[in-house]
């Protein structure tokens, strides 16, 4: 599965480029409207083209991400997949309870994290050693909170609550709680 870092990198490039372009366009526009010039009337055709462009852009973003971000179809159809490993995790009183001290995962295994809250709404996130996020989900009491993930990068990962649950929530961190074993042949 494509690493979420790669997706974030792509997003950073795309959004930064867009920001620079729109700032320059607005600066150009602000300069031009203070000057006299020909063609003051904007043709309706330009307007309809712009609306059409936005429509295509808005819809195609989701089609592209569905087809390029591998966890999206897995997430939406996770009932169709059989996990290689399942971890049942409980959260209560601002504390994670794991099935083992360390969750050991074979590289490229499809893992199901099934997290249950016994009281409040929490979050469940897995983070790399440099604090960047691998993935997260909400943990809502009274409902099943499960996520499938394929780890293809060996390493040590931290579990952290990603939802505010009062001041006590900031301590909901399990450092080095997940270990992904080296991939075969690496």
């Amino acid at each position: 599965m494509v690493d979420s870092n790669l997706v974030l990198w792509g997003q950073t490039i795309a959004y930064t480029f867009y920001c620079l372009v729109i700032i320059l366009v607005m600066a150009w526009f602000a300069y031009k409207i203070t000057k006299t010039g020909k063609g003051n009337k904007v043709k309706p055709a330009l307007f309809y083209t712009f609306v059409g462009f936005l429509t295509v852009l808005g819809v195609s973003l989701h089609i592209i991400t569905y087809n390029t971000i591998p966890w999206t179809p897995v997430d939406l159809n996770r009932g169709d997949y059989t996990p290689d490993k399942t971890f049942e995790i409980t959260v209560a009183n601002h504390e994670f309870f794991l099935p083992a001290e360390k969750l050991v995962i074979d590289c490229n295994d499809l893992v199901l994290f099934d997290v249950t809250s016994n009281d409040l709404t929490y979050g469940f996130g897995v983070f790399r050693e440099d604090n960047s996020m691998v993935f997260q989900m909400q943990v809502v009491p009274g409902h099943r909170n499960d996520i499938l993930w394929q780890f293809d990068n060996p390493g040590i990962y931290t579990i952290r609550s990603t939802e505010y649950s009062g001041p006590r929530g900031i301590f909901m961190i399990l450092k080095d709680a997940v270990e992904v074993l080296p991939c075969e042949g690496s």
Partner: protein
Amino acid sequence: MSFKNTFINGAEGLFKSDSLTQIQKIVLRFVVVGLVFYAFAVIEGMLMRIYAVDSIPFISTDQYFAILTAHPLVGIFGSTYALVFGAFLFLTPYLMKKPLYSVKLANWALILLTSGVLLFWIAGFISHYAPLYTLYWPLPADFSQFSVWGGTFFILGIAILMVGTLFFIINIFKTIVYTPEGWEKQPAAALFGSAIGYTGLKNMFAKKENKKEHLVPLPVAAIARGTVDMVLNTGIILFTGVLILVFMLASILGFDLKETAIDALLYKNWFWWGLDLIADGLVLIFVAGTWYLLATMITGKKLFMQNIARAALLLELVVSWTVWSHHLLSDQAQPAILKVLSGEMVTAFELITQGLAFFIVLATLWSARPLKMTNPLKFLLGGLLGFALAVPAGIMQADVGLNRILHNTQWIVGPHVHVAVLVGLTMTLYAAVYILFPIVTNGAKLYSQKLANIHFWFHLIGGIGMGAFMGMAGLNGMLRRTLYLDGEFNTYMILAAISGSLLLIAFLVFFYNIVMSIGLKGVIGIFTPSKLSTKELLPE
């Protein structure tokens, strides 16, 4: 004029509070209240920016989260609502060319808004009540971390504020439809239909000869349609407040309602539906309406494609009722169909409706070239840029795939929320303040154009800069609504704090400029009763 003289009497002594009508005074009171609460929000924001770098000795962690809870509420309800109420209580009768329905109701709206915000702010400050701005503490409420009494007063403050909001809503709709004394009977139903968009909708399916004219000007239609969302969210927030209050009162009386918990996911859906009517409803509609008004006032020309603009306002209203699910893309129990349809697809319509408003305003401005770069124009362009940056950021996070790695990170609250609110919304409101200033003050003069320029550049750079650095931290994994005790993201947070300080300086410069424009005497005069008994907006 000497500094002392200007400070007391205002720039060139032009502002005379005695010349103000009742409505002008109410509008200016709303503006003063809005700016004071904005100062609260900016100072709170700055404290939190510093706290994100390193703890502050006199602020405990509990206090920090209480500030985090009060900050957006004071910003949105205390500041933005006050400025919007003031502006629209003036603009609705001004554009409809009739007196405001009730001066008394407007005054009560101001009193309730001010006292409601102060009450919840004080309750939070004293008791450290911090279930965060959504009030969405999945029921049953957690009383092990928070004082039940603090929560009770906090919710009471919200309820008082919502009653004030209802008074504003009644006043707006009554002003549109009522018949002033001595006037020919007004077609109330037709006016109401035109305001909320029913006439326009019917026209789309009517033959050319049966099409009805729009009785209500376009900005008033925007005010009315945004107010429809305000009615709905006020009802939801009030109901939710009462619901939480039931849990709190039960706890005070010694009963524990924990076992009768309301389904947490259902509650989240319910609350986000209501709350999103502000963020993705009335804010966007009011902003689009204000852009249209500003564009026509600045250029003196008709709005480009105004029928489309009117239809888009109705579309935006319908869209705002159906987009809430983008807040629940990381809730695994939320049905996938809701995530894709409401969370992704309908939300993408906001790119279209806001993009369309953006284009219409630019085309209207373009048609009037050459324009003088006045304060209203430059702040309008800043507001347009703010939304041009923030809306696509929102569309990106409203994606099932990307939300998995963006939800609850600083990305959400930086490039999306703060850029939308501080750059998009606030700069639009500043544009309205600058353009209405001479009208509602009967010709007072701005003290310093240089200070207005500093206000503009510091606010624009500070707002975009803060959003950008928070966004970079978010993309690197930094969560919102938490603290990093080992300073993991300090580089970004220091840069965000420097940007935030520009926002604070911008506000102080603006506030000083306004006080020097109307003088201390003028500020006090705004709060004394009007000597003019007329119900008219402006002195005859």
